[in-house]
C-alpha cells in the first residue's frame, strides 16, 4: 500500500514538475522572442522548414480527406434526399472541422518529431551548450524561431489542406455526377461570411504554438544519449497531438461564443 501511495505521489509530482518546467521554459522563450537581436535568418530558414517542406504532405492529406468526405457525404445525403446540400456540407466540414485538425496532426507528426529530435540531438552532443558558450541565447535562436515559424505557417498550411480537400472532393463528386467547379464553389460558399471560416483557419496558429513549444521543450530538456533523443521525438509527437486535440475542444467552444 505505501508503495502505491509513493508511486501516485511520484506521478503527481512529475505532472506538476513538467507543467512548472514548461511554464518557465515558455517565459524564457517569450522574453527572448521580444527582445533584440532578432534571429531573422534562422526564422526564414524555419519558415521554409516548417512551411514549404510540409506543404506536399498536408496537401496529400487534404486530398485524401476531400475524397473520403465526398464519398461519405454523398452517400449519407442521398439517403435523406439532401443531395443538393453536398457542396455546402463538403465546404463546411473541410474548412471548419477536418482541414484545421488534420493539418495540425500531420504537421505535429512531421515538424514536432523533427524539432524534438533535432534539438534533443543538439542537447546530448553539447551543441546547445556550445551556442550558449558563444554568448548566443538558445531560447532566441532555437526555440523562439521554431515556435514562431509554426505559429505563422500552420494557418497557411491549413489553407493548402482545405484547397486540396475541396478540389479532390469536387473531383470525386463530379466523376459520379458532373458538376462544374464554379457551381460547386458558388453552392458551397452560399451565405458564408468571413466569420464562418477565418477563425477556424487562424485557430491553427494556436496549434502551431503548441506543436513548436512542446517539441522545443522536450528537445531542449533531453537527457540520456540516443535513447533520450528517441524519447524526445516520441514525446513531442504524442504530447503535441494530445494537446492539439484538447486545444481544439476549447477553441471550438471559444469560436462559437466569440464568433456566433
Amino acid at each position: 500500500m505505501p508503495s502505491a501511495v509513493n508511486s501516485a505521489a511520484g506521478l503527481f509530482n512529475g505532472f506538476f514538475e513538467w507543467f512548472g518546467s514548461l511554464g518557465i521554459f515558455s517565459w524564457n522563450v517569450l522574453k527572448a522572442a521580444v527582445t533584440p537581436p532578432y534571429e531573422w535568418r534562422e526564422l526564414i530558414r524555419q519558415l521554409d522548414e516548417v512551411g514549404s517542406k510540409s506543404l506536399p504532405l498536408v496537401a496529400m492529406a487534404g486530398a485524401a480527406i476531400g475524397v473520403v468526405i465526398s464519398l461519405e457525404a454523398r452517400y449519407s445525403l442521398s439517403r435523406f434526399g439532401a443531395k443538393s446540400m453536398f457542396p455546402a456540407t463538403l465546404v463546411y466540414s473541410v474548412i471548419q472541422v477536418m482541414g484545421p485538425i488534420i493539418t495540425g496532426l500531420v504537421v505535429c507528426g512531421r515538424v514536432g518529431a523533427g524539432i524534438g529530435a533535432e534539438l534533443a540531438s543538439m542537447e546530448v552532443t553539447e551543441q546547445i551548450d556550445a551556442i550558449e558558450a558563444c554568448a548566443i541565447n538558445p531560447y532566441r535562436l532555437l526555440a523562439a524561431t521554431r515556435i514562431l515559424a509554426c505559429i505563422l505557417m500552420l494557418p497557411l498550411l491549413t489553407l493548402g489542406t482545405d484547397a486540396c480537400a475541396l478540389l479532390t472532393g469536387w473531383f470525386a463528386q463530379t466523376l459520379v455526377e458532373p458538376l462544374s467547379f464554379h457551381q460547386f464553389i458558388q453552392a458551397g460558399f452560399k451565405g458564408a461570411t468571413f466569420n464562418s471560416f477565418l477563425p477556424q483557419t487562424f485557430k491553427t496558429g494556436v496549434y502551431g504554438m503548441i506543436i513548436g513549444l512542446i517539441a522545443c521543450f522536450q528537445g531542449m530538456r533531453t537527457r540520456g544519449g540516443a535513447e533520450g533523443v528517441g524519447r524526445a521525438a516520441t514525446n513531442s509527437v504524442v504530447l503535441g497531438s494530445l494537446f492539439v486535440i484538447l486545444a481544439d475542444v476549447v477553441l471550438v467552444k471559444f469560436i462559437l461564443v466569440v464568433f456566433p
Partner: protein
Amino acid sequence: MTTAYDIAMIQGQPEGDDSVPAIAVDNLHKSFGILKVLNGISLSVNRGQTLAVLGRSGTGKSVLLRLIIGIETPDSGSICIHGQDIAGLAIDQMGRIRKRIGFLFQHAALYDSLTIAENVAFPLEHHRRDMPKSERGDRVKQLLAEVGMEGDFKKLPSEISGGMQKRVGLARALALEPEILLLDEPTAGLDPISSGEIDDLILKLQREHQMASVVVTHDLHSARTIADRLTLLSEGEIVIEGTFDDLQHSNIGFVNEFLKQS
C-alpha cells in the same frame, strides 16, 4: 543598474586592469541531487597564466569549467570574471561576459549541420554583424590557418577526425578574440602525435594572445607542457596547487599515487 563594467562590456573596451584576476573562484560548492561534486573550491587565474585542473574522472573538473562560463549555476560561492560576480546575471548579461571567453568542449561540440567554415563563422555572424562578409570570410580563413585547418573549409564535422574537430573547436573558441580560454580535455581520445600537436597549438596561441586559460585534463604530460600551475582535485576538493615541481615534491599520498599512475 548599469555598472561601469557593463558599459565597458557594451562598448567592447578591454578591461586592462591586470591587478584583478581574470578568473576568481571562491569557496564554490555544487551538487547534483545528493552527489556533491565541488566542495569549497577556490582558485584564481591572471591574464597570460594557464592553470591545469587535474583529477580522476567524476571529480567535477568539467563542472568547474561549466560553472565558470555560466552554463551551470553554483549552489554557493562566487565566480568573478574580471572582477564581475556572475551570480544571478540574466542570460543576456551573461552573454556579454561570455563574448570574452572561449570554450573548447571535450568532444568539440561542433554544429553538425554546418560546415567547418560555418562553424567558425558562427560567433562572428552573431556578434560582428557590422563586419563585412568578405572580412568575416578572411577572419575565418585566418583562424582556420592558425589551427592548421586551412584546406577543409567545406567539410562537415562528421567528415573529419577527432583531432581535427578539436582544432576547429579551438578556432571557433578564438573567433571573438577572447581574453579567457577554457579547455575541457583538449587532448582526450587523441593519439600521442595529435595530442602533442594540440599542446603546441595551445602554447602558440597563448603566447600570441596572452589569454588567461584553464585547462581540464587527465593528461599529466599535456598539463606539464601547457600550464604554469597545476591543481589536483579529489572528491570535489583541491588536494594541492602549484607548479609541476611542487606536485613532484609533495608528500601527499594521493598526489604521489596520481603522478605514479599518470
